[in-house]
Protein backbone atom coordinates (compact mmCIF):
# COMPACT_ATOMS: atom_id res chain seq x y z
CA UNK A 1 0.00 0.00 0.00
CA UNK A 2 1.29 3.42 -0.94
CA UNK A 3 0.21 6.14 1.49
CA UNK A 4 -0.53 9.59 0.08
CA UNK A 5 -1.41 12.35 2.56
CA UNK A 6 -4.55 14.25 1.54
CA UNK A 7 -2.60 17.53 1.77
CA UNK A 8 -0.68 16.51 -1.35
CA UNK A 9 -3.95 16.55 -3.25
CA UNK A 10 -4.72 20.03 -1.92
CA UNK A 11 -1.30 21.29 -3.06
CA UNK A 12 -1.65 19.76 -6.51
CA UNK A 13 -5.17 21.07 -7.04
CA UNK A 14 -4.28 24.58 -6.01
CA UNK A 15 -1.63 24.78 -8.74
CA UNK A 16 -3.82 23.02 -11.29
CA UNK A 17 -6.73 25.42 -10.70
CA UNK A 18 -4.50 28.40 -11.43
CA UNK A 19 -2.69 26.90 -14.39
CA UNK A 20 -5.93 25.63 -15.97
CA UNK A 21 -7.29 29.16 -15.96
CA UNK A 22 -4.10 30.90 -17.17
CA UNK A 23 -2.65 28.42 -19.65
CA UNK A 24 -4.88 27.27 -22.48
CA UNK A 25 -3.82 23.80 -23.64
CA UNK A 26 -1.60 23.54 -26.70
CA UNK A 27 -4.23 21.25 -28.27
CA UNK A 28 -6.85 24.02 -28.08
CA UNK A 29 -4.44 26.65 -29.40
CA UNK A 30 -3.60 24.37 -32.29
CA UNK A 31 -7.30 23.86 -33.02
CA UNK A 32 -7.90 27.63 -32.93
CA UNK A 33 -5.02 28.21 -35.35
CA UNK A 34 -6.33 25.52 -37.70
CA UNK A 35 -9.78 27.05 -37.41
CA UNK A 36 -8.30 30.41 -38.35
CA UNK A 37 -6.99 28.86 -41.58
CA UNK A 38 -10.32 27.28 -42.46
CA UNK A 39 -12.66 30.09 -41.48
CA UNK A 40 -14.32 31.76 -44.47
CA UNK A 41 -15.80 34.71 -42.61
CA UNK A 42 -13.53 37.75 -42.13
CA UNK A 43 -15.28 38.62 -38.83
CA UNK A 44 -14.86 34.99 -37.80
CA UNK A 45 -11.13 35.10 -38.55
CA UNK A 46 -10.77 38.30 -36.56
CA UNK A 47 -12.54 36.69 -33.58
CA UNK A 48 -10.27 33.64 -33.75
CA UNK A 49 -7.25 35.96 -33.89
CA UNK A 50 -8.51 37.70 -30.77
CA UNK A 51 -8.92 34.38 -28.98
CA UNK A 52 -5.39 33.29 -29.84
CA UNK A 53 -4.01 36.66 -28.75
CA UNK A 54 -6.11 36.49 -25.58
CA UNK A 55 -4.66 33.09 -24.68
CA UNK A 56 -1.15 34.45 -25.20
CA UNK A 57 -1.83 37.47 -22.96
CA UNK A 58 -3.32 35.26 -20.22
CA UNK A 59 -0.34 32.89 -20.21
CA UNK A 60 2.23 35.67 -20.31
CA UNK A 61 0.64 38.04 -17.79
CA UNK A 62 -0.56 35.19 -15.53
CA UNK A 63 -4.23 36.21 -15.58
CA UNK A 64 -7.37 34.16 -16.28
CA UNK A 65 -8.08 33.74 -20.00
CA UNK A 66 -11.79 34.14 -19.21
CA UNK A 67 -13.40 35.96 -16.31
CA UNK A 68 -15.69 32.98 -15.79
CA UNK A 69 -13.18 30.76 -14.10
CA UNK A 70 -15.87 28.18 -13.74
CA UNK A 71 -17.26 25.54 -11.50
CA UNK A 72 -14.34 23.42 -10.31
CA UNK A 73 -15.11 20.05 -11.86
CA UNK A 74 -12.55 17.77 -10.24
CA UNK A 75 -11.79 14.19 -11.21
CA UNK A 76 -9.69 12.01 -8.94
CA UNK A 77 -8.55 8.56 -10.07
CA UNK A 78 -7.25 6.52 -7.18
CA UNK A 79 -5.08 3.45 -7.73
CA UNK A 80 -6.19 0.28 -5.93
CA UNK A 81 -2.85 0.17 -4.14
CA UNK A 82 -3.11 3.66 -2.72
CA UNK A 83 -4.33 4.70 0.70
CA UNK A 84 -5.23 8.37 1.01
CA UNK A 85 -4.56 9.54 4.50
CA UNK A 86 -7.08 12.18 5.55
CA UNK A 87 -10.35 13.57 4.26
CA UNK A 88 -10.28 13.52 0.48
CA UNK A 89 -13.42 15.65 0.01
CA UNK A 90 -12.10 18.33 2.33
CA UNK A 91 -8.65 18.21 0.70
CA UNK A 92 -10.18 18.77 -2.73
CA UNK A 93 -12.27 21.73 -1.57
CA UNK A 94 -9.26 23.20 0.19
CA UNK A 95 -7.23 22.98 -3.02
CA UNK A 96 -9.99 24.77 -4.92
CA UNK A 97 -10.30 27.39 -2.18
CA UNK A 98 -6.57 28.15 -2.18
CA UNK A 99 -6.21 28.09 -5.95
CA UNK A 100 -9.16 30.44 -6.55
CA UNK A 101 -7.92 32.83 -3.87
CA UNK A 102 -4.23 32.91 -4.77
CA UNK A 103 -4.90 32.93 -8.49
CA UNK A 104 -7.36 35.85 -8.35
CA UNK A 105 -9.96 33.62 -9.94
CA UNK A 106 -13.62 34.56 -9.84
CA UNK A 107 -15.79 33.00 -7.15
CA UNK A 108 -18.81 31.86 -9.14
CA UNK A 109 -20.60 29.41 -6.86
CA UNK A 110 -23.78 30.07 -4.90
CA UNK A 111 -24.42 27.79 -1.94
CA UNK A 112 -28.06 27.25 -2.76
CA UNK A 113 -29.64 27.30 -6.22
CA UNK A 114 -32.73 29.23 -5.10
CA UNK A 115 -31.50 31.52 -2.34
CA UNK A 116 -28.25 32.25 -4.23
CA UNK A 117 -25.70 33.36 -1.64
CA UNK A 118 -22.18 33.24 -3.07
CA UNK A 119 -20.04 30.78 -1.09
CA UNK A 120 -17.16 33.23 -1.46
CA UNK A 121 -14.41 30.75 -2.23
CA UNK A 122 -15.71 28.83 -5.27
CA UNK A 123 -16.30 25.68 -3.23
CA UNK A 124 -17.60 23.07 -3.18
CA UNK A 125 -15.98 21.32 -6.12
CA UNK A 126 -18.01 18.99 -8.32
CA UNK A 127 -15.99 15.90 -7.44
CA UNK A 128 -15.96 12.56 -9.22
CA UNK A 129 -13.90 9.68 -7.88
CA UNK A 130 -12.87 6.59 -9.82
CA UNK A 131 -10.85 3.61 -8.69
CA UNK A 132 -8.30 2.30 -11.16
CA UNK A 133 -5.45 -0.25 -11.15
CA UNK A 134 -2.03 0.86 -9.93
CA UNK A 135 -0.39 2.83 -7.15
CA UNK A 136 -0.87 6.38 -8.35
CA UNK A 137 -3.42 9.14 -7.94
CA UNK A 138 -4.41 11.23 -10.94
CA UNK A 139 -5.98 14.60 -10.19
CA UNK A 140 -7.68 16.64 -12.90
CA UNK A 141 -9.48 19.95 -12.76
CA UNK A 142 -11.70 21.17 -15.58
CA UNK A 143 -13.06 24.63 -14.69
CA UNK A 144 -16.47 24.78 -16.36
CA UNK A 145 -17.98 28.07 -17.46
CA UNK A 146 -21.68 28.73 -16.99
CA UNK A 147 -22.38 30.03 -20.49
CA UNK A 148 -21.66 26.75 -22.19
CA UNK A 149 -22.82 24.53 -19.33
CA UNK A 150 -26.28 26.14 -19.55
CA UNK A 151 -26.64 24.94 -23.16
CA UNK A 152 -26.15 21.28 -22.20
CA UNK A 153 -28.97 18.74 -22.37
CA UNK A 154 -29.81 15.07 -21.78
CA UNK A 155 -32.50 12.91 -23.39
CA UNK A 156 -33.78 9.38 -22.90
CA UNK A 157 -34.57 7.97 -26.34
CA UNK A 158 -36.14 4.71 -27.38
CA UNK A 159 -33.46 2.42 -28.88
CA UNK A 160 -35.17 2.60 -32.30
CA UNK A 161 -33.88 6.12 -32.97
CA UNK A 162 -30.41 4.59 -33.36
CA UNK A 163 -27.29 6.26 -34.68
CA UNK A 164 -29.12 8.78 -36.83
CA UNK A 165 -31.32 9.83 -33.92
CA UNK A 166 -28.24 10.51 -31.85
CA UNK A 167 -26.70 12.58 -34.65
CA UNK A 168 -29.91 14.62 -35.04
CA UNK A 169 -30.08 15.31 -31.30
CA UNK A 170 -26.46 16.46 -31.07
CA UNK A 171 -26.57 18.64 -34.17
CA UNK A 172 -29.85 20.17 -33.08
CA UNK A 173 -28.49 20.93 -29.63
CA UNK A 174 -25.56 22.83 -31.12
CA UNK A 175 -27.94 24.65 -33.46
CA UNK A 176 -30.29 25.65 -30.64
CA UNK A 177 -27.34 26.79 -28.51
CA UNK A 178 -26.40 29.17 -31.31
CA UNK A 179 -24.29 32.07 -30.16
CA UNK A 180 -24.71 31.47 -26.41
CA UNK A 181 -21.95 29.00 -25.47
CA UNK A 182 -19.12 31.11 -26.97
CA UNK A 183 -18.53 29.22 -30.21
CA UNK A 184 -16.26 27.78 -31.48
CA UNK A 185 -17.30 25.04 -29.09
CA UNK A 186 -16.19 21.57 -28.17
CA UNK A 187 -19.12 19.18 -28.04
CA UNK A 188 -19.00 16.45 -25.40
CA UNK A 189 -21.40 13.60 -26.07
CA UNK A 190 -22.31 10.76 -23.73
CA UNK A 191 -24.26 7.80 -25.07
CA UNK A 192 -25.65 5.01 -22.88
CA UNK A 193 -25.38 4.26 -19.19
CA UNK A 194 -28.14 5.46 -16.90
CA UNK A 195 -29.70 8.93 -16.95
CA UNK A 196 -27.07 10.38 -14.59
CA UNK A 197 -24.11 8.35 -15.84
CA UNK A 198 -24.80 9.50 -19.40
CA UNK A 199 -24.30 13.16 -18.48
CA UNK A 200 -21.14 12.22 -16.62
CA UNK A 201 -19.82 10.50 -19.76
CA UNK A 202 -20.44 13.64 -21.78
CA UNK A 203 -18.48 15.71 -19.27
CA UNK A 204 -15.65 13.18 -19.12
CA UNK A 205 -15.30 13.19 -22.88
CA UNK A 206 -14.25 16.85 -22.61
CA UNK A 207 -11.12 15.84 -20.71
CA UNK A 208 -9.68 14.25 -23.84
CA UNK A 209 -7.30 16.47 -25.84
CA UNK A 210 -8.73 17.99 -29.00
CA UNK A 211 -7.91 16.05 -32.13
CA UNK A 212 -7.61 12.73 -30.28
CA UNK A 213 -10.18 10.24 -31.58
CA UNK A 214 -12.15 7.61 -29.70
CA UNK A 215 -10.17 4.33 -29.66
CA UNK A 216 -13.14 2.40 -31.11
CA UNK A 217 -13.21 3.10 -34.88
CA UNK A 218 -17.04 3.03 -34.91
CA UNK A 219 -17.19 5.89 -32.40
CA UNK A 220 -14.20 7.66 -33.96
CA UNK A 221 -16.11 7.76 -37.22
CA UNK A 222 -19.23 9.02 -35.45
CA UNK A 223 -17.17 11.85 -33.93
CA UNK A 224 -15.88 12.93 -37.33
CA UNK A 225 -19.34 12.78 -38.87
CA UNK A 226 -20.80 14.85 -36.03
CA UNK A 227 -18.01 17.41 -36.38
CA UNK A 228 -18.69 17.77 -40.08
CA UNK A 229 -22.44 18.12 -39.59
CA UNK A 230 -22.06 20.66 -36.79
CA UNK A 231 -19.71 22.76 -38.88
CA UNK A 232 -22.27 22.87 -41.69
CA UNK A 233 -24.62 24.80 -39.41
CA UNK A 234 -22.92 28.12 -40.21
CA UNK A 235 -23.06 29.45 -36.64
CA UNK A 236 -19.36 30.32 -36.68
CA UNK A 237 -17.21 32.15 -34.13
CA UNK A 238 -19.41 33.96 -31.55
CA UNK A 239 -22.44 32.95 -33.63
CA UNK A 240 -21.93 35.73 -36.18
CA UNK A 241 -21.66 33.29 -39.08
CA UNK A 242 -18.83 31.09 -40.31
CA UNK A 243 -17.48 27.61 -40.93
CA UNK A 244 -15.85 27.01 -37.57
CA UNK A 245 -18.68 26.31 -35.13
CA UNK A 246 -16.97 23.43 -33.32
CA UNK A 247 -13.29 22.70 -32.77
CA UNK A 248 -14.04 19.06 -32.04
CA UNK A 249 -16.69 16.54 -31.01
CA UNK A 250 -15.92 13.85 -28.44
CA UNK A 251 -18.08 10.83 -27.76
CA UNK A 252 -17.95 8.40 -24.86
CA UNK A 253 -20.29 5.43 -24.51
CA UNK A 254 -21.29 2.93 -21.85
CA UNK A 255 -23.51 -0.17 -21.76
CA UNK A 256 -27.19 0.65 -21.27
CA UNK A 257 -30.56 -0.95 -20.51
CA UNK A 258 -32.36 -2.91 -23.24
CA UNK A 259 -35.17 -0.35 -23.10
CA UNK A 260 -33.03 2.80 -23.27
CA UNK A 261 -30.85 4.94 -25.43
CA UNK A 262 -29.70 7.84 -23.22
CA UNK A 263 -27.85 10.70 -24.92
CA UNK A 264 -26.31 13.74 -23.26
CA UNK A 265 -24.58 16.74 -24.77
CA UNK A 266 -22.25 18.77 -22.58
CA UNK A 267 -21.40 21.98 -24.38
CA UNK A 268 -17.92 23.34 -23.85
CA UNK A 269 -16.71 26.74 -25.02
CA UNK A 270 -13.37 27.38 -26.70
CA UNK A 271 -11.95 28.00 -23.19
CA UNK A 272 -11.65 24.21 -23.01
CA UNK A 273 -9.63 24.13 -19.82
CA UNK A 274 -8.32 21.07 -18.05
CA UNK A 275 -5.09 20.26 -16.27
CA UNK A 276 -3.90 17.02 -14.71
CA UNK A 277 -1.25 16.00 -12.21
CA UNK A 278 -0.17 12.48 -11.32
CA UNK A 279 0.92 11.83 -7.74
Amino acid at each position, binding site marked *: MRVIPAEQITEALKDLAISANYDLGEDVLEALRNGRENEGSPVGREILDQLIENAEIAAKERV*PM*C*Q*DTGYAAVFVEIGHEVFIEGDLNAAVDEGVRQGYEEG*YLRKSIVGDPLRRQNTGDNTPAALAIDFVPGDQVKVTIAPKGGGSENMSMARQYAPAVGRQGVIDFVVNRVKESGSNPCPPVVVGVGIGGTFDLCARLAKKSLLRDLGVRHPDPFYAELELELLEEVNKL*GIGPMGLGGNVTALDVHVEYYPCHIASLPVAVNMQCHAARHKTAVL
Partner: protein
Amino acid sequence: MSDRKKIQLPLTPEDVESLKAGDRVLLSGPLFVGRDQAHKRLVDLVEEGGELPFDIEGETIYFAGPSPAKPGQVIGSCGPTTSYRMDPYSPTLIALGLRGMIGKGARGEAVVDAMKEHGAVYFTAVGGAAALIARTVISMEVVAYEDLGPEALRRLEVADFPAIVAQDAHGGNQYDEGLKEYARS
Protein backbone atom coordinates in the same frame (compact mmCIF):
# COMPACT_ATOMS: atom_id res chain seq x y z
CA MET B 1 -8.84 46.15 -37.93
CA SER B 2 -8.54 49.39 -39.89
CA ASP B 3 -12.17 49.27 -41.00
CA ARG B 4 -13.41 49.50 -37.43
CA LYS B 5 -15.59 52.51 -36.65
CA LYS B 6 -14.39 54.51 -33.68
CA ILE B 7 -17.29 55.43 -31.43
CA GLN B 8 -17.27 57.80 -28.48
CA LEU B 9 -19.54 56.84 -25.57
CA PRO B 10 -22.14 57.73 -24.45
CA LEU B 11 -23.89 56.88 -27.72
CA THR B 12 -25.85 59.64 -29.41
CA PRO B 13 -29.24 58.97 -31.03
CA GLU B 14 -27.43 59.50 -34.36
CA ASP B 15 -24.91 56.76 -33.51
CA VAL B 16 -27.74 54.37 -32.74
CA GLU B 17 -29.50 55.33 -35.95
CA SER B 18 -26.43 54.74 -38.11
CA LEU B 19 -25.01 51.55 -36.58
CA LYS B 20 -25.85 48.44 -38.61
CA ALA B 21 -25.66 44.77 -37.70
CA GLY B 22 -22.23 43.45 -38.63
CA ASP B 23 -20.40 46.77 -38.07
CA ARG B 24 -17.12 46.38 -36.21
CA VAL B 25 -16.50 49.14 -33.71
CA LEU B 26 -14.02 50.36 -31.13
CA LEU B 27 -15.81 51.97 -28.19
CA SER B 28 -14.25 54.61 -25.95
CA GLY B 29 -15.75 56.36 -22.93
CA PRO B 30 -17.90 55.35 -19.95
CA LEU B 31 -19.55 51.95 -19.64
CA PHE B 32 -21.67 50.56 -16.83
CA VAL B 33 -21.16 46.92 -15.92
CA GLY B 34 -23.94 44.77 -14.53
CA ARG B 35 -25.23 41.24 -14.86
CA ASP B 36 -28.02 39.03 -13.51
CA GLN B 37 -28.43 40.17 -9.90
CA ALA B 38 -27.66 43.85 -10.53
CA HIS B 39 -30.29 43.87 -13.28
CA LYS B 40 -32.82 42.27 -11.00
CA ARG B 41 -32.17 44.90 -8.35
CA LEU B 42 -32.36 47.79 -10.82
CA VAL B 43 -35.65 46.63 -12.25
CA ASP B 44 -37.13 45.79 -8.81
CA LEU B 45 -36.22 49.34 -7.82
CA VAL B 46 -37.98 50.81 -10.85
CA GLU B 47 -41.07 48.71 -10.15
CA GLU B 48 -41.16 49.97 -6.58
CA GLY B 49 -40.97 53.53 -7.88
CA GLY B 50 -37.41 54.13 -6.65
CA GLU B 51 -34.60 56.01 -8.35
CA LEU B 52 -31.74 54.23 -10.13
CA PRO B 53 -28.26 54.56 -8.58
CA PHE B 54 -27.03 56.22 -11.83
CA ASP B 55 -28.47 58.33 -14.63
CA ILE B 56 -29.20 55.77 -17.33
CA GLU B 57 -30.15 58.23 -20.07
CA GLY B 58 -28.00 57.52 -23.14
CA GLU B 59 -25.71 55.08 -21.33
CA THR B 60 -24.42 51.67 -22.32
CA ILE B 61 -24.43 48.61 -20.06
CA TYR B 62 -21.87 45.86 -20.44
CA PHE B 63 -23.08 42.45 -19.23
CA ALA B 64 -20.06 41.14 -17.39
CA GLY B 65 -18.77 39.96 -14.04
CA PRO B 66 -15.00 40.50 -13.92
CA SER B 67 -12.54 38.29 -12.08
CA PRO B 68 -10.76 39.97 -9.14
CA ALA B 69 -8.03 42.48 -10.03
CA LYS B 70 -4.48 41.51 -9.13
CA PRO B 71 -2.43 44.14 -7.29
CA GLY B 72 -1.56 46.82 -9.84
CA GLN B 73 -4.37 45.88 -12.23
CA VAL B 74 -7.33 48.19 -12.96
CA ILE B 75 -9.64 45.22 -13.35
CA GLY B 76 -9.36 41.45 -13.63
CA SER B 77 -10.30 39.57 -16.78
CA CYS B 78 -13.62 40.88 -18.02
CA GLY B 79 -15.24 39.34 -21.07
CA PRO B 80 -18.98 39.45 -21.75
CA THR B 81 -21.51 37.09 -20.22
CA THR B 82 -24.49 35.54 -22.05
CA SER B 83 -27.10 38.20 -22.68
CA TYR B 84 -30.40 36.30 -22.90
CA ARG B 85 -30.41 36.11 -19.11
CA MET B 86 -30.84 39.90 -19.07
CA ASP B 87 -33.77 39.74 -21.54
CA PRO B 88 -36.45 39.96 -18.83
CA TYR B 89 -34.91 43.23 -17.56
CA SER B 90 -33.53 45.06 -20.59
CA PRO B 91 -36.84 46.38 -22.02
CA THR B 92 -37.54 48.28 -18.78
CA LEU B 93 -34.08 49.85 -18.83
CA ILE B 94 -34.28 50.68 -22.54
CA ALA B 95 -37.59 52.46 -21.91
CA LEU B 96 -35.78 54.53 -19.27
CA GLY B 97 -33.16 55.66 -21.77
CA LEU B 98 -30.54 52.91 -21.97
CA ARG B 99 -29.05 53.23 -25.46
CA GLY B 100 -26.46 50.49 -25.72
CA MET B 101 -25.87 46.96 -24.44
CA ILE B 102 -22.82 44.75 -24.81
CA GLY B 103 -22.85 41.03 -24.14
CA LYS B 104 -22.73 37.81 -26.08
CA GLY B 105 -25.44 35.74 -27.73
CA ALA B 106 -28.72 36.70 -29.37
CA ARG B 107 -31.48 38.78 -27.74
CA GLY B 108 -35.15 37.89 -27.66
CA GLU B 109 -38.11 39.54 -29.35
CA ALA B 110 -39.19 41.77 -26.46
CA VAL B 111 -35.71 43.30 -26.28
CA VAL B 112 -35.57 43.81 -30.03
CA ASP B 113 -38.99 45.51 -29.95
CA ALA B 114 -37.83 47.86 -27.20
CA MET B 115 -34.63 48.60 -29.13
CA LYS B 116 -36.66 49.55 -32.20
CA GLU B 117 -39.19 51.57 -30.27
CA HIS B 118 -36.81 53.60 -28.12
CA GLY B 119 -33.63 53.48 -30.19
CA ALA B 120 -30.99 51.19 -28.75
CA VAL B 121 -28.26 48.96 -30.13
CA TYR B 122 -26.86 45.61 -29.02
CA PHE B 123 -23.17 44.82 -29.46
CA THR B 124 -21.40 41.53 -28.96
CA ALA B 125 -17.92 41.41 -27.56
CA VAL B 126 -15.82 38.29 -28.01
CA GLY B 127 -16.81 35.86 -25.28
CA GLY B 128 -13.74 34.47 -23.60
CA ALA B 129 -11.41 37.22 -24.86
CA ALA B 130 -11.41 38.48 -21.29
CA ALA B 131 -7.71 39.19 -20.77
CA LEU B 132 -7.56 41.10 -24.05
CA ILE B 133 -10.66 43.16 -23.22
CA ALA B 134 -9.27 43.99 -19.75
CA ARG B 135 -6.43 45.86 -21.47
CA THR B 136 -8.94 48.38 -22.85
CA VAL B 137 -10.18 49.32 -19.38
CA ILE B 138 -8.64 52.54 -18.06
CA SER B 139 -10.53 52.90 -14.80
CA MET B 140 -13.09 51.08 -12.70
CA GLU B 141 -15.28 52.05 -9.78
CA VAL B 142 -18.09 50.27 -7.98
CA VAL B 143 -21.33 52.28 -8.31
CA ALA B 144 -23.66 50.11 -6.22
CA TYR B 145 -24.37 46.65 -4.85
CA GLU B 146 -20.84 45.95 -3.65
CA ASP B 147 -22.26 43.03 -1.66
CA LEU B 148 -22.81 41.19 -4.94
CA GLY B 149 -19.06 40.69 -5.40
CA PRO B 150 -18.41 39.89 -9.06
CA GLU B 151 -21.99 40.94 -9.81
CA ALA B 152 -21.68 44.46 -8.34
CA LEU B 153 -22.71 47.43 -10.51
CA ARG B 154 -19.57 49.11 -11.84
CA ARG B 155 -18.59 52.04 -13.99
CA LEU B 156 -15.66 51.67 -16.37
CA GLU B 157 -13.79 54.04 -18.58
CA VAL B 158 -12.66 52.17 -21.71
CA ALA B 159 -10.51 52.99 -24.71
CA ASP B 160 -10.92 51.15 -28.02
CA PHE B 161 -13.02 48.36 -26.58
CA PRO B 162 -13.57 45.96 -29.54
CA ALA B 163 -17.17 45.02 -30.30
CA ILE B 164 -19.43 44.08 -33.18
CA VAL B 165 -23.01 45.26 -33.74
CA ALA B 166 -25.01 42.05 -33.38
CA GLN B 167 -28.57 43.45 -33.44
CA ASP B 168 -29.31 47.02 -34.48
CA ALA B 169 -32.13 49.48 -33.82
CA HIS B 170 -33.80 48.70 -37.16
CA GLY B 171 -34.25 44.96 -36.63
CA GLY B 172 -30.98 44.05 -38.36
CA ASN B 173 -29.60 40.81 -36.95
CA GLN B 174 -26.09 39.59 -37.69
CA TYR B 175 -26.82 36.14 -36.20
CA ASP B 176 -29.49 35.54 -38.82
CA GLU B 177 -27.39 37.06 -41.60
CA GLY B 178 -24.40 34.91 -40.61
CA LEU B 179 -26.48 31.74 -40.74
CA LYS B 180 -27.92 32.69 -44.11
CA GLU B 181 -24.47 33.25 -45.52
CA TYR B 182 -22.60 30.28 -44.04
CA ALA B 183 -25.06 27.42 -43.44
CA ARG B 184 -24.52 24.47 -45.79
CA SER B 185 -26.90 21.55 -46.17
